[in-house]
């Protein structure tokens, strides 16, 4: 079965073609164009959606030609219906609807966050993992139980990605700032005490953000280093608590912040102590991509009928723990 997936929830516009044979999937192409705001600024939804519109047709044709298929070969088309930025989501939905209605191809709206998890499972081979989803939009610890992903811990305010981006922008980096912060953090080992806020399995980052901004005026590298050490230790502790509570024997890390080396080093350490297997999504597929949407759509098509055009919604708020999964 051949699917096309379209991702446009935030800064990335991406189209991917995957082939599914029974339980295995093969990525035939995954083409992306990423909107880059200027330094010190975040994503402007209008500008990002304009970027997506401008690149949509080129990205689509490239993904098809790279996969060596034509639109008529496709069995289904899926798009990210949320959660994300309204104007950006609409671009992907319009492209998907156009293809679906013109070529009469079944269409599937997909939850973006479930996409991160499903692609992670496909690529890492994790069977029954505790999942840490860390990105610009999410910071959640999840486990699958009775047809739904259940939240065992999450951020009570901003996400890990937002923490890094908002701090990074305040010292002049352009989003996404994770890589720049990591590089600057690696130049020092001087730890400055920052607020550490773990509430059971939950974390809260807003106080940490303000405190880090205020120490950045004296020493930027120290601030980056201390921010990483504190925030990642908080996440690691929350994961450790959830591992011990759920007694899961696998941990899978997905989402854009999974690319951070210091974080994955800490989490590996946690897994060692709890004798859990550690899985991390390959760097290339950590960030937002069409593959995650395509694969989830292909999985859904096993048990669900495609959506009628009136049902092809987009929604900015769509929690992944509200999605019923019966494939």
């Amino acid at each position, binding site marked *: 079965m051949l699917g096309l997936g379209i991702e446009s929830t935030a800064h990335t516009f991406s189209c991917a073609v995957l082939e599914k044979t029974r339980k295995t999937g093969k990525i035939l192409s995954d083409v992306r164009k990423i909107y880059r705001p200027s330094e010190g600024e975040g994503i402007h939804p209008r500008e990002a959606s304009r970027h997506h519109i401008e690149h949509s047709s080129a990205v689509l044709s490239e993904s098809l030609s790279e996969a060596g298929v034509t639109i008529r070969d496709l069995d289904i088309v899926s798009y990210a219906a949320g959660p994300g930025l309204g104007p950006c989501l609409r671009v992907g939905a319009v492209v998907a609807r156009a293809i679906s209605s013109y070529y009469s191809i079944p269409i599937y709206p997909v939850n973006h966050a479930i996409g991160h998890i499903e692609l992670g499972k496909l690529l890492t081979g994790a069977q029954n993992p505790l999942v840490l989803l860390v990105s610009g939009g999410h910071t959640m610890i999840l486990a699958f*139980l009775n047809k739904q992903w259940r939240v065992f811990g999450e951020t009570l*305010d901003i996400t890990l990605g937002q923490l890094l981006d908002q701090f990074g922008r305040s010292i002049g980096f352009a989003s996404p700032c994770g890589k720049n912060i990591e590089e600057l953090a690696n130049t020092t080992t001087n730890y400055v005490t920052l607020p550490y806020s773990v509430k059971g399995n*939950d974390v809260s980052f807003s106080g940490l953000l303000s405190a880090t901004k205020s120490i950045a005026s004296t020493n930027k590298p120290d601030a980056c280093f201390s921010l990483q050490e504190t925030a990642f230790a908080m996440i*690691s502790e929350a994961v450790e608590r959830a591992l011990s509570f759920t007694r899961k024997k696998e941990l899978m890390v997905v989402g854009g912040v999974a690319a951070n080396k210091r974080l994955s080093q800490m989490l590996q350490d946690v897994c060692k102590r709890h004798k859990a297997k550690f899985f991390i999504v390959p760097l290339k597929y950590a960030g937002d991509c069409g593959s995650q949407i395509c694969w989830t759509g292909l999985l859904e098509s096993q048990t669900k009928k495609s959506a009628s055009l009136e049902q092809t919604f987009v929604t900015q*708020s769509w*929690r992944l723990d509200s999605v019923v999964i019966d494939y």
Partner: protein
Amino acid sequence: MQLKILKRGAEADICLATWNGNKAIIKTRKPKSYRNPLLDLKIRKQRTLKESQIMSEVKSFGIPSPVVYCVNVKKAEIIMQEIPGTPIHDLQESQIILLSKIMGRLVGIMHKNGIMHGDLTTSNFILFNNTVYTIDFGLSHKTLKPEDHAVDLRLIKEILNSAHAQIMNPCWQNFLSGYKSVVGTSQFARITNIVSQIESRGRYATVV
């Protein structure tokens, strides 16, 4: 003395021991290699101190908890009474539903006396000899702030909603009724209102 690790928890190792002829456990917060040493030392010391103090204090207003025998802050170690019962988490569903009311009442008593537990999960209540004991006070605080109490409720709600999803509704209703019976109607309304506020601040909660 050879120590056998009984349980390796998220935060600490639990070993069996004896103290003046009584069965005891040693809870040691071992250094975590992933954490920056400065931060690690601070956290381990602080939590050992908090846990031992508050675990003793809650007894004065009737919360069953382990007796503290000895504290070594330098080693981040507490020797305490062993409660050889079963965590609520591992009981049968019908029992969990029933005992949710007791958990609610215990949390209400703690809050009324200005204690926030900070780590309310079904693993941190142990049923032993028909009594529910509260354990793991490492994240507890002395606070009368309604927001802090609401954080406590939100956490146990999250746990019921995830680990005990099938029986979430009866458990949560029982928990709330136990809690309400202690704190009173007006305080109850105040706290649960803040719980809803916290939930609405959650990522992608249905607000837009």
